[in-house]
């Protein structure tokens, strides 16, 4: 490298707003729309400081009209602009999903490739701070299920910056989902591992490359977003118990890096999926099926174990929420359970 890179420690929120700001400076077609993204700087601080820098024409405050402004993003993207639109909480997708999955995601296909839709949708996900059933969901598997959307779910500031720049430069719709509990907000406790060294300069992280964030030999924990941080803490505890866990951070769900998962599971023979989404018909099933589909080459030492929200709405009360959302200790317990299990011989 000829350039000397300087890096500072940033929170994930700072990394994200920095990435957006850099791309807005670089490309005048990029603009941002959403609720409370201006003076407030975004409820989860994804746009802090950007209004002052770019003004209200490019950091556009919207009414509470998600269908209205997401449809606006669809139309603007078709014209060659590069909108970023924020759905404050992913939980609100139900009022505007049509614009996303029937139009933004499909118009390139339906036009036979004649049109591009370079739009990014940013949104806050996850629970753990008692915001209850309508403000604590992950739902990424729904976005990953419908074709035509790329789905990005970073676990730390470094990745978030590189993935955000990649997202803005991608000519396709990307949904960029940040877990509130790793943003490093001043008003919510967060996992400190998510706040890390971030180079000042611009860089991209390619989609579809999972990150083996910790090497191990006994079992593979496939995970993403905040759960990566929980899994790393769990891996520390497991190491004390003599169990060597490999942690795979998926980073993006679409594209999905099955090869890295497969390689890791081939090595360890055990798979634990650690997920904050609802258990059934979602991410953990998709990851498990990587094993099921590769029983010809994989020699599993134990059945796959899925740890996720047990198909209940996220409850408000602290003990209930802690029970419903997988915690560091439940990852540890599941890993131990996995080490004691046996596959059919």
């Amino acid at each position: 490298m000829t350039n000397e890179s300087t890096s500072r420690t940033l929170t994930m929120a700072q990394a994200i707003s920095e990435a957006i700001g850099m791309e807005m400076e670089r490309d005048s077609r990029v603009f941002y729309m959403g609720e409370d993204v201006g003076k407030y700087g975004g409820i989860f601080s994804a746009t802090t400081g950007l209004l002052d820098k770019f003004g209200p024409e490019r950091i556009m405050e919207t009414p509470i009209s998600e269908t209205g402004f997401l449809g606006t993003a669809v139309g603007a993207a078709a014209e060659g602009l590069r909108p970023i639109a924020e759905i404050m909480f992913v939980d609100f997708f139900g009022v505007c999903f049509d614009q996303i999955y029937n139009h933004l995601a499909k118009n390139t296909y339906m036009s036979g490739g004649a049109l591009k839709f370079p739009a990014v949708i940013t949104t806050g996900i996850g629970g753990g701070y008692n915001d209850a059933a309508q403000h604590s969901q992950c739902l990424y598997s729904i976005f990953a299920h419908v074709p035509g959307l790329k789905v990005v779910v970073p676990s730390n500031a470094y990745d978030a910056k590189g993935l955000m720049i990649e997202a803005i430069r991608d000519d396709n719709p990307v949904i960029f989902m940040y877990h509130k509990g790793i943003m490093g907000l001043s008003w919510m406790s967060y996992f400190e591992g998510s706040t890390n060294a971030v180079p000042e300069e611009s860089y991209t992280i390619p989609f579809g490359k999972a990150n083996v964030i910790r090497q191990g030999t006994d079992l593979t924990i496939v995970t993403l977003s905040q759960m990566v941080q929980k899994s790393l803490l769990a891996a520390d505890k497991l190491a004390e118990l003599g169990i060597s866990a490999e942690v795979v951070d998926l980073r993006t769900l679409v594209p999905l890096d099955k090869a890295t998962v497969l390689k890791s599971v081939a090595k360890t023979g055990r798979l634990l999926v650690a997920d904050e989404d609802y258990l059934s018909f979602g991410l953990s099933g998709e990851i498990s099926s990587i094993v099921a589909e590769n029983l010809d080459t994989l020699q599993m030492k134990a059945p796959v174990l899925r740890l996720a929200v047990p198909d209940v709405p996220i409850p408000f009360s602290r003990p209930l929420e802690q029970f419903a959302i997988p915690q560091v200790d439940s990852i540890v317990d599941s890993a131990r359970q996995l080490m004691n299990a046996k596959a059919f011989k």
Partner: protein
Amino acid sequence: MEPSSEKLLWMYKTMIEIREYEEAMVKVYLEGKLPPKIQKGLAFDIGAGPVPGEMHLAAGQEPVAVGVCAHLHAEDSVVGAHRPHHFAIAKGVRLNEMTAEMFGKVTGLGRGKGGHMHLFDPKVKFSCGGIVGAGAPQACGAALAAKKMGKDWVAIAFFGEGAANQGAFHEALNLASLWKLPVLFVVEDNSWGISVPKSMSTSVASNADRAAAYAMPGIRVDRNDAVDVYMAAGEAVARARRGEGPTLIEVKTDRYLGHFQGDPEAYRPKDEAPTLRKDDPIPALGAMLRSRGLLNDETDAGIRAEIAARIEAAYEFGRSSPYPEASEALQHVFSS
């Protein structure tokens, strides 16, 4: 329809109860959320303390709640939004159970599962929810049910001026008018949708002007005044009970506190809230009651003492009630 002395007193008392409830919550909510007992570096921890999670308080917005609910019975339905306490209290929701819900306790309205934005009290037909605009069509459902059952019950959807720009508003008002449903849509115009002023969210000065788009009456109440709201709502409720269909009412009101507790309010002119408090509707109604001989220092003190006791009891109930068993998380996904 002027309010009777009884109604005036009820509105006064209920406004005090709401205000005191909210002011008490301001304090309780902060418990355990400030340094040094939280993660190092944080200014505030939303998930800590006995009442965690978001908290939207309605201090200043009492008139709309009492002015409308003064016309209601237990059988009438109220659907609130993310800022629900004033409506809940005015509708007669059980205060102990409501408070326990916000403490996440098993004695709460929803056994601790719903929390502050999701309060359900079937006994007085109160519900609310955290998705902006979603309550309007649900109120249509309650109104349709009343109509189908041949009752003269009405339903009220309360929501903010920000919510009036959500598609659900449009669909609900059109349906209500088309089907002549006994429902009132009551917009609380507190000028703000979080940090967004009405002028940046709403293309028309008054939402009352949107009523014509549904061939229904639209009323704007321009003062944050319980009696003014009472009079506007009275005629609308009566119309609804007579089977003459829905009404849209927008009430000018004031949000004294942040959007949620912990809101830095950097977007808000520093002196706005203090200035607003100069027009506090509670002393205003108190003065009117006094001028009519319905209140004096002594009765006022009595009212306040009684309310203070009730509120203290409610917080004490919430605080001292037990948490649900963790495994209760798995129950009640389906009713059986």
